[in-house]
């Protein structure tokens, strides 16, 4: 387990989690990495740690550069345990009295994870710390994506240690953008959709602040996945684009089904949408993880949600998806609700009221079909889809 020298005396000393498939409910089919960074200078600094079970892997990588006991300070950009889990071990190793730099909220939040036994140095927003030949400037990035989040920026090398921002859940043989190319972008987009979507107004403010400060980046080093050394501007531009949440000529038909009736409806609706020239994706909620569905929702102009009526209510996976989507606050969407039913048929109405609460504009009344859709009902679904598709196409003109 060796380190990677990113720039002279700046090393990647993180860990690769090849096997994780469920990251607090976010499906991570490509695993992830926990990136930690070692800067060897007059003051030796470690920026962030790794998830607790990977602490030994990090220590082993550090040992190839320097005796870990020689680390003078630990910097915690973010309290979440995939980056702070290694703190107790590393502090035990280097000495509990060594300074632990973090934001003010970081001090508070780290104390509530690991107790207040550490020598916390809560930094001010914009504060600079000299390491010798290099320095680090700390920038608070509250709620991007926790209250404690901050960036560390090295002005001498124009390197940004960006915590979770600009990261991706991706474990692979590559460590850098130039090694993987365009193939990393879908992972970065999935990460954005699942972790950051609700904070897009804050991201826009942050990007404006960075521009105003005239910060330049030769590299952006996030806490997960690929490091951006060839073209850091590319991921910054993508964040600016994704933050605008501009609706595309695309529809997601997210649904579940009991005896295939709601599935038949979903697929007929998707065909109708296609007839109107909309790129429509029927997504069965037990064939597609919520994190995949929300990634497609992010740039869709239309979200159509379908549920059979089960015991007078929604099918559980549909409730799950709605809860997830509500929290991520997607904007600028048209919505619609449908479902098959046997007797009472409450689901489409419940769906519609939930979409309403999320601020989705619903130009069409919910569509429901009794039992199995026959030729007439299929035609109705197709036409309903086509109508919705035309509305979307018109609005995007």
């Amino acid at each position: 387990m060796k380190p990677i020298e990113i720039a002279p005396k700046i090393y990647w000393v993180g860990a690769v989690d090849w096997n994780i498939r469920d990251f607090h409910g976010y499906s991570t089919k490509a695993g992830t990495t926990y990136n930690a960074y070692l800067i060897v200078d007059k003051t030796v600094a470690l920026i962030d740690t790794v998830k607790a079970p990977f602490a030994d892997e990090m220590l082993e990588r550090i040992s190839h550069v320097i005796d870990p006991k020689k680390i003078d300070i630990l910097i915690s950009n973010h309290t979440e345990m995939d980056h702070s889990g290694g703190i107790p071990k590393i502090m035990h190793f280097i000495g509990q009295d060594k300074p632990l730099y973090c934001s003010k909220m970081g001090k508070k939040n780290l104390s509530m994870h690991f107790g207040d036994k550490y020598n916390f140095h809560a930094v001010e927003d914009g504060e600079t710390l000299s390491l010798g030949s290099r320095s680090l400037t700390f920038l608070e990035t509250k709620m991007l994506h926790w209250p404690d989040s901050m960036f560390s920026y090295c002005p001498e090398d124009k390197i940004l240690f960006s915590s979770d921002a600009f990261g991706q859940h991706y474990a692979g043989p590559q460590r850098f953008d130039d090694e993987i190319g365009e193939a990393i972008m879908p992972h970065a987009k999935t990460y954005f959709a699942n972790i950051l979507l609700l904070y897009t107004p804050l991201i826009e403010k942050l990007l404006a602040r960075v521009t105003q400060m005239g910060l330049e980046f030769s590299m952006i080093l996030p806490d997960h996945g690929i490091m951006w050394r060839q073209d850091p501007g590319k991921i910054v531009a993508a964040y600016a684009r994704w933050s605008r949440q501009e609706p595309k000529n695309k529809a997601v038909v997210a649904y579940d089904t009991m005896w295939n009736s709601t599935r038949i409806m979903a697929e007929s609706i998707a065909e109708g949408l296609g007839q109107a020239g909309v790129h429509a994706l029927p997504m069965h909620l037990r064939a597609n993880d919520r994190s995949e569905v929300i990634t497609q929702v992010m740039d869709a102009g239309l979200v159509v949600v379908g549920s059979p009526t089960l015991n007078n209510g929604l099918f559980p996976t549909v409730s799950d998806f709605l809860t997830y989507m509500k929290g991520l606050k997607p904007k600028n969407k048209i919505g619609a609700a449908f479902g098959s039913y046997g007797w009472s048929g409450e689901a489409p109405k419940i769906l519609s009221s939930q979409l309403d609460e999320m601020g989705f504009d619903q130009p069409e009344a919910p569509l429901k079909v009794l039992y199995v859709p026959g030729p007439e009902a299929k035609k109705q679904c197709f036409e309903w889809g086509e109508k919705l598709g035309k509305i979307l196409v018109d609005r995007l003109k």
Partner: protein
Amino acid sequence: MDKYVCQVCGYVYDPKQGDPENGVEPGTPFEKVPEDWTCPVCGAGKEDFEKE
């Protein structure tokens, strides 16, 4: 006096408690909180608060 909720992080400003750590005395109605005050949890501005 109404409570106000931060639309970014969910923090609730309770006028009875104010935000003494950041110079807002207990008993200060939200309307009287300084315009440059920000959410103590997430840093959002006053404009990001809505009545509970």
